[in-house]
């Protein structure tokens, strides 16, 4: 799926698909005397669980999405489950509430992910530019948000934003700004900042590791040629970590389209702004457990899976095209 091999190489050497094709013959060749079924036996315990936790539920979701539970008569009679083919999908594909939620998270992802990755890249470049003991302290400090559980991070910012407890609204007032972090206009900014805070350090760490594999001699050569530090960063370091950026971006997209916990926490304080169908997963959860309509929830989750797959494939294409 992902050819991240590119991350470890200078951009000139990147030809998609070139390296991996040569490798497998060497890596997966049958070793001397390896009993033929041993590999399967080592994999078997995982496979049993994988079937139970992934394949069966996946099939069950597909199966369920083909049915509708109808209450017969006045609504007190026994519910009848009948096969309806694609009716749930037609309903989902034409459900404006679902598409509003999907559109919301897609727009959010398009704005949020580049900002977060750009900050992570700047942090990684800065960290790569310091030497000695300082590197360790800064790296640890910048990773502190990653050590904070997701729920706690959400709570901290929820309170920081809150006009009752938080210092941020007061600070805004002192410079003459009346800020409501939970208003319709600012809500995504507030959630975006919370996500950036929680995830930027980790993405920085991945990019930093990629930067460390750039041959140092390149920088010295550039310095002798009179290139400024900024120029070195932009022309040598950034192209080098492009493959890593594409991959972290893709993983971020998959996560962002499925955002659930953060908006759910924000819904506690502002239920009018963060509606129960605010994001696709919130709507699916709602359909399943509040409305009790598992069949429709199953169909929606299949549609969401297709959206996620299409979005990451598109991003991967675009990311690799700019590379060549």
């Amino acid at each position: 799926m992902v050819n991240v091999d590119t991350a470890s190489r200078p951009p000139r050497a990147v030809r998609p698909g070139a390296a991996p094709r040569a490798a497998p013959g060497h890596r997966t060749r049958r070793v001397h005397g390896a009993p033929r079924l041993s590999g399967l036996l080592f994999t078997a315990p995982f496979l049993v669980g994988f079937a139970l936790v992934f394949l069966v539920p996946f099939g069950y979701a597909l199966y369920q999405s083909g049915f509708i539970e109808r209450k017969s008569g006045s609504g007190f009679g026994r519910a009848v489950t009948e096969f309806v083919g694609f009716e749930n999908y037609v309903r989902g594909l034409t459900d404006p509430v679902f598409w509003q939620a999907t559109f919301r998270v897609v727009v959010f992802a398009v704005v949020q992910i580049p900002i977060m990755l750009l900050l992570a890249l700047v942090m990684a470049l800065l960290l790569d530019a310091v030497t000695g003991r300082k590197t360790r302290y800064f790296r640890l400090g910048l990773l502190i948000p990653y050590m904070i559980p997701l729920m706690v991070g959400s709570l901290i910012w929820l309170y920081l934003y809150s006009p009752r407890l938080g210092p941020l609204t007061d600070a805004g007032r002192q410079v003459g700004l009346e800020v409501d972090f939970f208003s319709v206009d600012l809500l995504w900014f507030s959630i975006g900042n919370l996500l950036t805070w929680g995830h930027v350090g980790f993405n920085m760490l991945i990019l930093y590791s990629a930067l460390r594999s750039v041959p140092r001699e390149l920088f010295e050569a550039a310095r002798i040629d009179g290139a400024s530090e900024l120029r070195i960063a932009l022309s040598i370091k950034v192209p080098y970590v492009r493959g890593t950026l594409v991959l972290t971006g893709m993983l971020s997209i998959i996560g962002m389209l499925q955002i659930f916990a953060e908006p759910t926490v924000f819904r506690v304080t502002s239920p009018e702004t963060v509606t129960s169908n605010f994001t696709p997963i919130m709507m699916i959860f709602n359909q399943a457990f509040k409305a009790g309509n598992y069949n429709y929830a199953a169909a929606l989750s299949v549609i969401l899976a297709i959206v996620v797959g299409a979005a990451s494939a598109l991003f991967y294409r675009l990311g690799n095209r700019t590379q060549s």
Partner: protein
Amino acid sequence: MTILAATGKDSDQPAASEPGPGAVRKQRRGQGDEPAVGVQVPRSSRILVLVGLVLFLIYSIAPVWWLLVSATKNEADLINTNGLWFAEFNLFDNLRQIFAYEDGIFLRWTLNSLLYAGVGSVVNTALALAAGYGLARFTFPGKKLILGLVIGSFLIPYAMLTLPLYLLFSKLGMVNTVWAVLIPTFISPFSVYLAKVYTEGAIPPELLEAARIDGAGEVRIFLQIVVRMVATGGATIFLLSFVASWNGFFLPMTMLQGAENWTMTLGIYNWLVQSMTNASASTDFTAIVIAGALLSVIPLAAVMLVMQRFWKSGVSLGAVKS
């Protein structure tokens, strides 16, 4: 969403680096060295770099500082005093309220979280290392299909699996038991994928051949050679799984209705809801949400600090191969 890969080896270098045209041998730079004499980085840009890093550091740490300070306050002080500095010290009173709440159910949540994340991740790592080894160093019928399924499953929204799993578990009578959270934690295709990458990087096939010629059995080769050589990668898998489980919200929220099986995350979320709705209750919910949040940081931060060297030196997407 927190996903990464790490090299199987404990180094900053990619596992399999081929020298490109004209590339010089990569050197691992030590902690303390400076750029070569004669081409010093200008002082002004060094200062700019430090200023930038300090700003990012403040952004990263200030919210945590707020949590630390606020955990020591009662509700009145939370509202009326400066959020970034201490007021009357009420931490112990808050802690007493936390552990008194419903006969100390918070302790139960703590143990539950440790059980789900700890036991769940140990099993997750063990299954992943075995499967990763099987996929990396053997050929067998159906291997391509399995690899395809493992990688394809990254794209499936977790809600699509969790809901039918809930229905299946409820038919089996497992909903609302620890198994409903543990079993899904055991299985992670991403862990398997990482384990496969680590094994490819760390275990040369020749070594396995030699061991077989010496007459070692397959199980013994795995336990005594392979597991030791991919220990660093295994630790990274464990850590990632632990963090994911500790942060889990959708899964426990779906599976667990009774408060006695909740995680810390779920319990604190519930207190937050109560703090908004039960304003007149005898418990100071806002204060215990904040102090409880601080307590739930401790186990995760402790695990991460103890295992620091695995994520700080091993992490590199450069080693991930398709």
